[in-house]
């Protein structure tokens, strides 16, 4: 398997605390790779360095073979990396459709176009509508984003990440705050993406992780202590001790 994403000796500390401590990780094309770990293990910090929100102290990140470690965040999306946020990050005062259409627009050439009304550009609107239909928000398209429920916002995050057309999706706790039923729906939807997209998934919901992941890495205090298939991780004594809370 060719590695789509290759992380080497990545390190990031805040004061004396190493949030990312010499992390090595490969994500293969087409796999769903989950990262689990207790609170404060540095999962979101890791994703932020991949998406460009934070700069690592050292180490390297390669995407499709190219070194992107120091590339600004906005260039990474164009290379094919999209992320969703643990804490919902949407443009609340725009409509649901506007939010997704902006994601479509991002990969549709530059946006220094000043004349034509963006809301009348059919291929942007249609692609965005289609994406909303896929995540089950088709009938909410014209609502103000602020009017949607938390669960719907989580789905919008996914729709937006997908709408960029990115190959690699960095999903930061897509299940956060969802009820059992909504979680099941989200897992079912993410399953549909298997093989179509490469996903780096951070998630606390263990049922979801074991249902979705091809491989799992366990992050504890900024270090990856184990990487393997779901079965291997289940059987790993160190992981059980450090994370799953069993003797």
């Amino acid at each position, binding site marked *: 398997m060719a590695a789509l994403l290759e992380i080497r000796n990545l390190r990031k500390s805040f004061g004396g605390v190493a949030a990312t401590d010499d992390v090595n990780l490969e994500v293969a094309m087409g796999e769903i790779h989950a990262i689990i770990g207790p609170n404060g293990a540095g999962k979101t910090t890791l994703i932020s360095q991949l998406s460009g929100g934070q700069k690592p102290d050292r180490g390297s990140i390669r995407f499709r073979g190219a070194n992107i470690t120091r590339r600004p*965040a906005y260039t990474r999306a164009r290379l094919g990396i*999209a992320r969703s946020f643990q804490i919902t990050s949407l*443009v609340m005062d725009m409509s649901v459709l506007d*939010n997704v259409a902006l*994601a479509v627009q*991002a990969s549709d050439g530059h*946006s*220094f176009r000043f004349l034509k009304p*963006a809301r009348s550009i059919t291929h942007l609107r249609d692609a965005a509508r289609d994406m909303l239909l896929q995540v089950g928000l088709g009938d909410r398209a014209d609502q103000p984003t602020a009017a949607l429920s938390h669960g719907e916002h989580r789905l919008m995050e996914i729709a937006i990440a997908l709408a960029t057309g990115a190959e690699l999706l960095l999903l930061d706790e897509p299940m956060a705050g969802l009820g059992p039923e909504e979680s099941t729906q989200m897992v079912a939807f993410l399953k549909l993406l298997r093989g179509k997209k490469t996903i780096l998934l951070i998630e606390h919901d263990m049922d979801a992780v074991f249902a979705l992941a091809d491989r799992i890495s366990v992050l504890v205090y900024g270090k990856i202590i184990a990487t393997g298939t779901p079965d291997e991780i289940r059987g790993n004594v160190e992981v059980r001790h450090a994370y799953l809370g069993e003797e």
Partner: protein
Amino acid sequence: MSMTKRSIWPTLGFLLLLLVVPLGFYFYDNAFYLDLATRLVILGIAATSLNLVLGYGGLISFGHAAYIGIGAYAVGIPVYHEFYGGFDSIASTNGLFQIAIAVGIATLFALITGAISLRTKGVYFIMITMAFAQMAYYFFLSLDEYGGDDGLVIEVRSEMPFMDMDSPVQLFLLCWMSLVVAMLIVRTIVHSRFGMVLQGAKGNNERMVTLGYNTYVYRLTAYVISGAMCGYAGALMGNFSSFISPAMMEWGRSGELMFMVILGGAATTLGPVLGSAAFILLEEIFSSVTIYWHLPFGLLLIGVVLFARGGLTGMFRGRGN
């Protein structure tokens, strides 16, 4: 943000009123109201330009009066040299030349100050835009040749093709048409792809960057367009008042422009114009009652911010609170 299409009729109606009423007064021998309306319309252009960055971009520029000053001096200085010699290369009474200088220098000033200011956020952005405007203020204050503190009388108005700027009616018509064009430009921009990115960055910059937009460049572009438009308004202001002094670009003037945008309703097409109308009329009314008119004025602004979020346009649309 427009989720539903808003009617364009109130805007058209108000613009028409703005055209007909002052002209009506003028032809019934009351020139004062045409004067008032011309100032209103020019400030309306400036406020409309500010609205592009403040309302739609969420960038609270506290220095837009600088562009009015720059634009007005771009009329005054060439005229000064035409009359008193020196600097032959810029000595001119040609209006198109003066406007080109006004817009050109305003663009350059916006590009340089914007490139630096936009590296900061929030209150720092407010402070740094204000600081740059104050720099421009002190720059003109120190130019003794052009009157410094005392200002500069603009001996003749710009010479324009097909029109006479000395005619109050023609000057007003030019200003009014300029306002309509300015509103159309801003409206077109904010609905375009560019405008969607600008508004998206206002709502959630991190999200837009993550989507792949270099929002800094989009914001800078908007800032430069806004500065250029405001510089144009300044050139009109110079013609209107036939006088220019650094006091026109003091930070308090920038605050008044912000006041107009917020009072009228930020991020709406009509808002800034409605705000300048309210500003001019209230100033007129309050200042005829008391010289301490700034106090009731200030209270009014606080009232608008607290009770009528969305400004006057918001109130009329029943979106207040």
